[in-house]
C-alpha cells in the first residue's frame, strides 16, 4: 500500500468519525418537518449531508426507540409509507444538541483561526 492510499484511508476513517455525530443532528433537524425514509434521504443529500440507506433506516428506528422520533404509517400516492417526525423529547434534545454543536463550532473556529 502506498503512503498516498494510507493517507486517503486515514482521512476517510476520520471523516466518517467526524460525520457520525453530525448525522444524528442532521436527521433530527430535518425531521422538524414530517418525512418518510426515502424523501428524508433525498433532503439530506440535497443539503450536502448524503447518507446511505444502510445507515439512515436503522438510525431512524434507533432514534424512534429512544423516544426522539414518532412514526406513523400513512397512505400517500396509493402506497403505505412510514412517516417520521420529531417527538417532544426530540425537540428538547435537538435544541440542546444544537447549542452544544454551536459551542464546539465556535471553540474550533477560535482555535483554527487563532
Amino acid at each position, binding site marked *: 500500500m502506498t503512503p498516498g492510499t494510507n493517507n486517503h484511508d486515514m482521512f476517510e476513517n476520520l471523516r466518517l468519525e467526524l460525520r457520525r455525530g453530525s448525522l444524528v443532528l442532521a436527521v433530527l433537524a430535518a425531521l422538524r418537518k414530517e418525512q*418518510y*425514509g*426515502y*424523501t428524508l*434521504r433525498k433532503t439530506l443529500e440535497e443539503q450536502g449531508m448524503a447518507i*446511505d*440507506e*444502510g*445507515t439512515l*433506516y*436503522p438510525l431512524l*428506528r*434507533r432514534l424512534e*426507540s429512544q423516544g426522539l422520533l414518532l412514526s406513523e404509517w400513512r397512505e400517500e400516492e396509493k*402506497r*403505505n*409509507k*412510514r412517516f417520521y417526525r420529531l417527538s417532544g423529547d426530540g425537540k428538547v434534545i435537538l435544541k440542546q444538541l444544537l447549542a452544544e454543536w454551536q459551542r464546539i463550532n465556535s471553540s474550533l473556529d477560535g482555535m483554527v483561526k487563532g
Partner: protein
Amino acid sequence: MELLERYLRAVKFFLPRREQDDILRELSENILSQMDDKAAEFGRPLNENEQVAILKQHGHPFVVASRFRNTPVQYLIGPVVFPFYWFVLKILFWIGLGVNALNSIALLTSGEPMRQLLGGLLDFAHTALPVFGWVTFVFALQDFFIAKFHLVDKLNQRWDPRSLPATPAPQQNVRRSQSIFGLIAGAVYVAWLLAVPYYPYLIFGPAASALRLAPEWHRFYLPVVVLAIAGLAQAAINLVRPQWTWLPPATRLACNVGALVILRFIFKTNSYVFVLVADSARGAHYETVAQIANITIIATLASVALGLSIAVIIEALRCLKEIWQWIRRRGNPLPSRIS
C-alpha cells in the same frame, strides 16, 4: 419486481423475528420509492441491471439486516483482558511448538520418520487446541466477572501511582567468564559425545571390552548431540551478545524440555547395556555387571527426569521474568529527564 422480493426474503432471514415484518415493509417501501423515482427520471420502467444497481447500493442482505439488529457489541474477551489473553496464548503456542519440534527430532531417528513426524504434528494439534480452548474459557470467565462486578471501574478509582512497579533496574549483561566457561564445558561435552561411539572406554572404562550400549541408544544419539550443540551455541552467542540475557534461561528451558522428551522414549527401553561375551565365566561375571548397570541407569534416569522437571519449572519462571522485564523496558520509553 421479482428481484426485490428475492432481496427482501434474503434480508428477512437475518432479521430479528419480532421486527421482521415491520422492517421489511419499510425497507420495501423505501426501495420502491427510489425505483419509482429513477423510473420517472428515465421515463420508462427500470431494467434488470438498473434494479440490480439500486439493490447493490443498499448492500448485501446480511449486511443490511445486521444494521437493524439492536444487540449491543458482544465479545468473548474484552479489550481489558485481551492483551493478557493474547500474551498467554502466544507463550503457550511457542512452548508447545518447541516441545513438538524436539519431539520430532527425537522421532526422526526412529524407524518411520515421516509417519512419526505427521503423527507428532497431529498430536500437537490434539494437545494445543483443547489447551487454547481452556485458556480462552478461563479468560472469557475472567472477563465476564470483571464486567459483572465492575472491577475495572473499582480499580480505576482505587489505584495509586505509588503502587506502580518500580522502574526496572538497568539491564545486567551475561558475564563474559560465564560464557567462556560454558563454551569450554560445552565443547568438551560435545567432543566426548562425538567420541563415545568410537571409544566405548569413555563410558565403560576397563569393562569396555565386554559391555556395550544397547542399540536403542542410537535412536537418541542425534537428539542428545543437538541439545549439547544448542548449549554450546548459546554460550558462543552470549560471548558476542552479552546483552541477550534471555538466551541462557530460554536455551536451558528448551534443552531441559527436550531432554525430558528424550527421556520419555528412553524409559520405554528395557535394556540399556548388554554383554558382548555371554558364554564364558567372564561373560557371567559381566552379565551381573550389566544387570547392576541397567538398574543403576534406570535409577539415575529417574532422578535426572525429576531434576529436569524441577529445572523446567524454574527456567520457565526465569523466562517469564525476562519477558516481563523486556516488556517493561519496551513499554517504558521514558524521556531521559524522567528515566
